[in-house]
């Protein structure tokens, strides 16, 4: 009787140990894999110029309900200028940043803002609420 319960206890203990070891191994694997795959970030302190926020300007033409280029990709913190032109008059709405501007044919409309929120923000025709393209703000 006594022996049996000791035995069961031992088996239970080894199960707990096995489980703990497995969990530890999996955790080590997960962390290791993370650092192995993560793209090389700059070592602390010395940021390269490419990591600093930049000023970026893009010419964006709107034709037949689509932007060209259809996506504009910047990095968080960048000072962004979008110079918009369109064949037909429309009201452009940049989601998230909630900027609205009228674009008239033959004129250049400038949208200028600091890209302080990361994410993917659609740029839509305000009248029809259809997407013309998107602004992608990559996190730093």
């Amino acid at each position, binding site marked *: 009787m006594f022996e049996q319960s000791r035995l*069961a206890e031992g*088996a*239970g203990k080894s*199960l707990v140990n*096995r*489980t703990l070891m*497995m*969990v530890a191994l*999996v955790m080590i*694997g*997960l962390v290791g*894999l*993370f650092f192995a*795959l*993560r*793209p090389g970030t700059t070592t602390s302190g010395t940021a390269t110029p490419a990591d600093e926020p930049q000023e970026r300007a893009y010419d964006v033409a709107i034709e*037949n*309900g*689509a932007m060209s280029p*259809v*996506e504009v990709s910047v990095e*968080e913190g960048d000072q962004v200028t979008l110079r918009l032109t369109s064949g037909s008059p429309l009201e452009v709405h940049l*989601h*998230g*940043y*909630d900027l609205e501007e009228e674009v008239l044919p033959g004129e250049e409309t400038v949208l200028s803002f600091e890209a*302080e*929120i*990361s*994410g*993917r*923000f*659609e740029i839509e025709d305000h*009248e*029809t*609420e*259809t*997407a*013309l*393209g*998107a602004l*992608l*703000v*990559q*996190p730093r």
Partner: protein
Amino acid sequence: MRRAFVLTLAVLLLLPLTASPTFAHGLGVSYDLPLPLWLYLYGAGATVLVSFAPISLLGGGRRAGGEAAYRYPRFDLLRIGPLRVVLTSKALLLGLRLLSVGLFSLVLLSGFFGRQVPASNFAPTFVWVVWWVGFGFFVAFVGNLWPLVNPWKVLFEWTEALVRRLRLGDGLELRETYPAALGVWPAVALYAVFVWVENVFWGSPTPLYIAVLALNYSVLTWGGMTVYGKEVWLRRGEVFSVFFGLLARFAPTEARVEDRRLCRACSDGCGAAQGDCVNCYECFDKAAPEDRELNLRPWAVGLARAEPVPPGGVFFVILVLAGVAFDGLMETPLWSELRRATSMPPTLGLVLLPPLFFAAYLSFVKLSQLFGGGKGRLRLASLADVYVYSLVPIAIAYQVAHYYTLLLVQGQEVVHHLSDPFGWGWDLFGTARYEVNPGLVGAAFVWYSQVALIVVGHVLAVYLAHLGALRLFGDRRKALRSQLPMLALMVLYTISSLWILSQPIIVEEEAVPTENAQPDPTLREPPMPDVG
């Protein structure tokens, strides 16, 4: 049932079936960036790596398996005095029900009479973001409030009470015998319609269509409750009760009845199968207060309970899984290419995807049966039943990863809609000028949390399927072997979830039909005085 079919047909006929492919999505626009490649690869690697944890937990050890009752830790919240007072308070329940019926009425009113602009109307944001996404999360992560607040159920009960009080008769139910073989197939059909409306129907953000659909669905639901009885229809045909009931299996709370006789007499025979009665709201309603328990339990354990799956139940789960995947798939370049190459309408994609998922599921279950060597003894159908709930964490994980930012950001819209539900320029609570804060969570945090959610959902799924196998095969070795194909299937599902999240989002270029852009001018501005 014939009546239900006629009504379903009526719902469909009331919709313009000329749905054209557009980007107009019922849920508004998410601000998520696609996962970067390295994080996608990490997620895939992590998925495979963590798959070994459940196997090592369950594969070895001294677990008896077999037909032993499934146990998990639970704690009865009703045992705590003050909590019991609050949780069983009649006033609180009435308050919740009034709130629910009030919100339901507001959706109908703002849909029919409000401005037909999705961004200025209460109905679209409330229905698609706050209720469909937000309430669903609440059910999965806290508990199933739906049986308490379901406006269709509440209104039916109130009408019945009125009928009795006026002595017009003994309730409304005709109690026709519900064909047992029909199972939850009516809910399957309705869920398919719902997913179509959500993802394909261009009018899904239009307040008027939301109200029309809600009204049609009300007629159908009350019809079903009248013909077959309220409880039967809620369990089999009321698609949201079936759906939230599925999510509630994941929830960390359960409603339990400790009265065997009552449960055996239940119209569902709920207590007969396992000897206990959990989340059967019919029994819970009828039980004496001292026989009721409201238990806290670990997440996901409810999915491993050995309960009989009704006919259509397996397909329902697969449909939920395929539905959430379809939603994301529609925005991928692959989908866009496929459509360009085959000029396939999105509806066809929605028709094909669930059977494809179903076939994949059955094939892997078949493999599991062969690997487990239980061919002579175990029927394929019973294996399919046992494993199917283990897929639920994968569906929930994907749904949360895909939508939680939408809930956090677009959900804020409801703050200003509450002050001006009809878009008439009201400011009832002084919040009409509330501006949405789009930067609550940064994109990097969103990425990491998405991968974490999906990997955790995967571990739970693998664990649950393994538990099911142990119970069914009753032998550790056989169970372990049987799990190799299931593991492959789950890795496949999980990596596709990650893949969808990593795909660049495609902006469809087709124009929205003019009806959507410019609603009927008579609907646009109802002649109502401005207030405030």
